[in-house]
């Protein structure tokens, strides 16, 4: 096994399939429409990509531990609503509102984790319930209307999170750096740290992990908190960038994020996860959404392509998995 060539080992990696798909996708869209790789299009695509991406990174760790979180989309909508409501009412500054939104998100993650690990309710049901509670709260406190957001201009918080500048012809938002930092940090945690070993063990064989003294419940609760906080941060970033805080925003993001993670090669059943794969999965889905519009396919057909990609990648991953198990 050790004398496999470098190329064979690269091909055997779970990230290889998503990588090829991304390259093919970019080549096809570019061949149809050269504007696809224009600086403006790349800048536009990246701006929103990293916002969803932040959620997907945290979801990768959570799914590796064998759980998932359907409430992220609702938090994406709720957190900016909370922040702006606090600010507009004059109760707090924008910064304090931001911290309050993150703390509330952390609390929601804690509740999710507590229900899943202590009451032993499947995360599908717990986070579905939480999705409705959080979304319902956002709609109730706003009467369903977007919040006023115009006064964010010039705030240091907005500058740090979504300040923009140009590198050559590319318009870059600060959020891109937050995304890269989060990807590196979480990739490190998953592959290099002791915590990463525990996360994989918690998803792969929780009773074996528990028997070795690993605090499986603690690991999972921590990851639910991380997932909620990242969704909240992503929502605030998106809200500051677009100057909007709509209680309905983020609807359906949970499924898109989970799709990104599984396309990247993380197992839905837990035990195996890859941050590099997730970054590729994020790009695959966002490039697809952007590309099919650019080449003139009706935007409403988007889901057909996404569904086909999910099915195709799942078939590939399961084939690779079986090959792997057979020891070839």
């Amino acid at each position, binding site marked *: 096994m050790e004398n496999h060539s470098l190329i064979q080992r690269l091909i055997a990696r779970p990230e290889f399939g998503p990588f090829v798909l991304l390259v093919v996708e970019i080549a096809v869209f570019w061949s149809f429409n050269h504007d696809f790789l224009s600086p403006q299009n790349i800048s536009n695509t990246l701006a929103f990509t990293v916002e969803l991406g932040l959620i997907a990174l945290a979801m990768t760790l959570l799914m590796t531990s064998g759980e998932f979180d359907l409430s992220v989309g609702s938090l994406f909508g709720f957190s900016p609503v909370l922040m702006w409501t606090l600010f507009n009412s004059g109760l707090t500054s924008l910064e304090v509102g931001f911290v309050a939104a993150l703390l509330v998100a952390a609390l929601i993650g804690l509740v999710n984790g507590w229900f899943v690990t202590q009451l032993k309710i499947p995360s599908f049901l717990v986070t579905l319930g939480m999705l409705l509670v959080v979304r319902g709260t956002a709609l109730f406190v706003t009467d369903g209307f977007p919040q006023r957001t115009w006064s964010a201009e010039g705030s240091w918080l907005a500058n740090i999170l979504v300040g923009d500048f140009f590198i050559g012809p590319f318009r870059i938002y600060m959020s891109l750096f937050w995304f890269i930092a989060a990807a590196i940090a979480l990739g490190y945690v998953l592959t*290099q740290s*002791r915590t990463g070993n525990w996360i994989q063990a918690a998803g792969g064989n929780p009773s*074996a992990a528990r028997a070795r*003294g690993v605090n499986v419940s603690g690991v999972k609760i921590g990851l639910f908190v991380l997932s909620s906080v990242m969704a909240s941060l992503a929502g605030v970033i998106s809200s500051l960038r677009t100057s909007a805080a709509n209680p309905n925003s983020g609807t359906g993001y949970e499924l898109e994020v989970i799709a990104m993670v599984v396309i990247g090669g993380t197992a839905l059943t837990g035990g195996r996860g890859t941050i590099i794969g997730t970054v590729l999965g994020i790009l695959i889905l966002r490039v697809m959404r952007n590309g099919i519009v650019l080449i003139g396919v009706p935007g409403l057909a988007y889901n057909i392509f996404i569904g086909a990609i999910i099915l195709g990648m799942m078939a590939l991953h399961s084939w690779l998995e079986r090959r792997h198990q057979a020891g070839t």
Partner: protein
Amino acid sequence: MAEPLIRMQNIRKSYGRVQALEDANFHVNEQEIVGLLGDNGAGKSTLIKVLSGAVPLTSGDIFIRGKKVSLRSTSDAIAHGIETIYQDSALVTQLSIARNLFLGREPIKPPRFLNRMDQDAMNNVARDLLKQVGISKNIPPTTPIGSLSGGERQAVAIARAMHFDSDLIILDEPTNNLGVAETQGVLSFVRSARDSGHSCIFIAHNIHHVFQVVDRIVVMRRGKVVADDIDPKKTSVAEVERIITGMSDKEIRDAIADGKPSH
């Protein structure tokens, strides 16, 4: 006589109205392999679960080297040097051999706040251990457990128990679903564990496997230990089978005493 490594005294365990263990008495000496036999429902699994901390006992005492202990969880039992190896369930198939060996006790590279595993150290120890239990044959320690055979997985689990100096290694059906050569491999791991100072409890449906490896056989029936001093060298398989399926106490005593059928 010296205090045994493990002594379980008057152990009772009931699940609702079902009495799984009724005043069971059981002991394991230092550096001894004990075969625990009994029909389905005899109580051997429950006894082992109590000893491994997986289920709480209803009443009774457990002593380790004469000192009374309470085992409230599997990690409690591991901390007391009792390691239980269930087939498959003790390992995480997605993780490598080395990562499984050190799960929960991963060595950390300085600076500690980075929480970074010392993977080189883990791999080196794993490579040595694999050699010790005799499955070195070019399996790198980075191989995921999922691509190992059943016997190799048992070997990894046994190697782990040996490395972390468990005093007692409990093997629950370690030879189930294994081929002939693999079974012999597992039996030799068990012997090498004893020879390096560990005690083992060996549970298997296949009595012949038990006979090949154990120093002493204990038989349970209906929640009680009915014979705890059977010498496999002096007793026949047929005898032990008869004890398992139910002879009177007198018949058992006679059978153990003279090694002949009692009637």
